[in-house]
């Protein structure tokens, strides 16, 4: 099939950027979108032009490295699919497709399509953990976790940290990421002691980098793991609770 790629090229963080159009002729529809870029890059290198920089690693939709705004949608037109898992057969032969990097203040562009997502690490560092120093744990089966809670926590924990939620959000908010991290830990019994300190820490740190959630719901649709915005509601509710609870008397860390 044939595709025209309009790819954002930007030499460095502060350099000006522009779209370059590349005509891809006779590519196989079994290719993944990243393999299309491999082919493009080999062609570019053959012509002595610098290849397009883009993040990728596992190419199975789990590491969260790949990140492209494809045709105005984070990770492209197929729902529940990361860029690396998008195959050309899902695109329309002959189309022109614009490919841009994630755009958000918290994700500065490094080069071309590669952005720096370390702000997500800052969020987790601020409180996205359960304090459990190695060696201090009791037998795993002494903690009973209702299956429903484990399943719900897993639904949230499926987040791959790709940043599509931020990219897709009209406000550049990272609420879905933070809510997923928060819910994963706070739905489990192990996560209760730090529940309310966690929610405050996570919310405040998130807002140092990202915009505010105004409930567009766009993130949910862009998420390659289809994580629900129900978790955002949980985050919001617990954030208010954290202000109102007498934590000392409810056994919560202050």
């Amino acid at each position: 099939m044939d595709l025209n790629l309009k790819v954002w090229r930007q030499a460095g963080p502060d350099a000006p950027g522009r779209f370059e159009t590349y005509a891809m002729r006779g590519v196989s529809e079994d290719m993944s979108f990243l393999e299309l870029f491999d082919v493009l890059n080999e062609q570019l290198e053959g012509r002595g032009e610098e290849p397009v920089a883009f993040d990728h690693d596992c190419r199975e939709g789990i590491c969260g490295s790949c990140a492209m705004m494809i045709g105005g949608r984070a990770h492209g037109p197929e729902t529940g699919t990361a860029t690396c898992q998008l195959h050309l057969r899902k695109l329309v032969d002959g189309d022109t497709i614009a490919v841009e990097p994630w755009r958000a203040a918290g994700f500065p562009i490094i080069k071309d399509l590669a952005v720096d997502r370390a702000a997500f690490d800052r969020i987790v560092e601020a409180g996205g953990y359960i304090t459990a120093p190695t060696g201090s744990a009791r037998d795993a089966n002494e903690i009973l976790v209702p299956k429903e809670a484990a399943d719900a926590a897993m639904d949230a924990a499926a987040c791959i940290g790709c940043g599509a939620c931020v990219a897709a959000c009209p406000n550049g908010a990272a609420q879905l990421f933070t809510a997923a991290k928060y819910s994963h830990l706070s739905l489990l019994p192990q996560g209760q002691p730090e529940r309310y300190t966690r929610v405050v820490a996570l919310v405040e740190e998130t807002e140092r980098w990202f915009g505010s959630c105004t409930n567009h719901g766009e993130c949910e649709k862009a998420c390659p793991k289809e994580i629900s915005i129900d978790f955002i509601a949980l985050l919001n509710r617990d954030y208010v609770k954290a202000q109102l609870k007498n934590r000392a008397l409810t056994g919560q860390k202050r």
Partner: protein
Amino acid sequence: MTTLDAKIPAGPIAEKWDNHKFSAKLVNPANKRKFEVIVVGSGLAGASAGATLGELGYRVTMLTFHDSPRRAHSIAAQGGINAAKNYRNDGDSVHRLFYDTVKGGDYRAREANVYRLAQVSVNIIDQCVAQGVPFAREYGGLLDNRSFGGAQVSRTFYARGQTGQQLLLGAYQALARQVHLGNVKLHNRTEMLDLVVKDGVACGVVARDLITGEVRSFSGHAVVLATGGYGNAFYLSTNAKASNVTAAWRAHRRGALMANPCYTQIHPTCIPASDDFQSKLTLMSESLRNDGRIWVPRDAGDARSPDQIPESDRDYYLERRYPAFGNLVPRDVASRAAKREVDEGRGVGPLKNGVYLDFGAAIARLGRSVIEQRYGNLFQMYERIAGEDPYTVPMRIYPAVHYTMGGLWVDYNLMSNVPGLYVLGEANFSDHGANRLGASALMQGLADGYFVLPATIGDFLAPLLGTEPVPTDDPAFREAEAAVGEQVRRLLSSTGSHPVDHFHRELGKILWDNCGMTRTAESLDRALTDIPALRDEFWSDVRVLGENESFNQSLEKAGRVADFLEFGELLVRDARHREESCGGHFRVEHQTEEGEALRNDDDFAYVAAWEWTGDSARPTLHEEPLAFENVALAQRSYK
């Protein structure tokens, strides 16, 4: 050739680890902060080590080439993690896990290490649950288990099909907490390109900032490598694209011994390549073989679509050749059998490079909904990649490189022969012998990082109290920085005509064809001439564009492929020297009449650890003899 001392503690196997921990020197809690430890790699092994060392109070510097520690390749593991909890009451025990691992490794692993691994496996699950890893649960709230990879007990803990992800997130979050507290300094997108050794002791690393190109030294009292496996030497593998051997290989060039590089594991159920542009292969869980039947057309060149081929023209070759185990024979046996069918022209699919894994019978017997419940997400993944609906068209599968048992040689303390250099996780050679059991790599990585290293590193550090790390302006650092700079300059000044990937693909082809699922003296000799030739061609004909001072992925790749081109030769040399078949190493010359791997315990019951002797010199072989005192050596059979 010298004989290596693995420093295995004396005493009965069940007491070795406890005794050893007791006799190791300790660092006083208040003094731990006086030690600087460099951890390279943030996968399960590295992240768990970094977090634990930070909790203990050591000052940790952490390097990873990933943009976040959470993206390390461990994230991709699907199936699960083993532990000898015996929650199922089905006869499991530390001893059984130990036994299964030694046997599964075809008697080429070090008993004492494996026993320790089985012992701490129990603590790993406790630790992970405490951190909030959402393992699958029963309705009563207790942990669920499944049986995995043909094990006879259910000892595998899992979190949907994303166990590696959840375990890594647990370790990463513990690490993040230490970063927040200031005990760990994290350097992401920073790639280690050399090990610095002064007076025979590891004292730091030289790394390149992947965004700015700055080459920088990090100095510490000890260096820990947890940099993963080298499966990508084969180009096409199930490993993440960036997985590479550079850190280990650079350490090897600085004196660390490389052990058993020829032990590579091939996974039988991967989705075959669809075209020449295929960049990596995707693994499909082995559990599919529980219900799927594997077959090929009886006649070579049969081009009919699968639904047109009647039962009488199909060959269910595993069921035919291994009536007892059928489709559930171990990974290596299933892989070699598939290769044979494809090599003999009975492969299926547009490129004739796969075999069918057919669920037709299972769907007819159990109904579509049961199959959907069991494998729904896998079927979806297959459909997405292959574009065919496995409920109606049989899946096509083919083996692919998946895991590497070999790696840097380490002693019982996980320290390499270079004092101060520790190696953890898939990067070391330690616990799996010639073949790894399913769900045991995650276990090993976490055992190394959470429990083993933190207990053994003190013994090395304690005597160093009061010494400062070697300053980074020491000539040893300067020399290593210069060497790294020179390599970068050399790659960038290349003016050849082929991009890096071309050479990587070629190397992969050489290794896969000559040193893949089956190996012969002849094929290995061929590889031993082809690889150096390709390496020369690389240096004269590669083309790397761009500059050092910015994000340059071609340059990153070029450095990694350059190291694969050196390492690949050692891999083949090791395979050539090992005149036996064992586990993932199958020499056609050495097989039983039934076509099974035939070990030679008299001559090869040792770990082959190779020493670098210079660019054009042959490496020197060192041996660590393996003694089997607790498990009796036996021949495998699956008929």
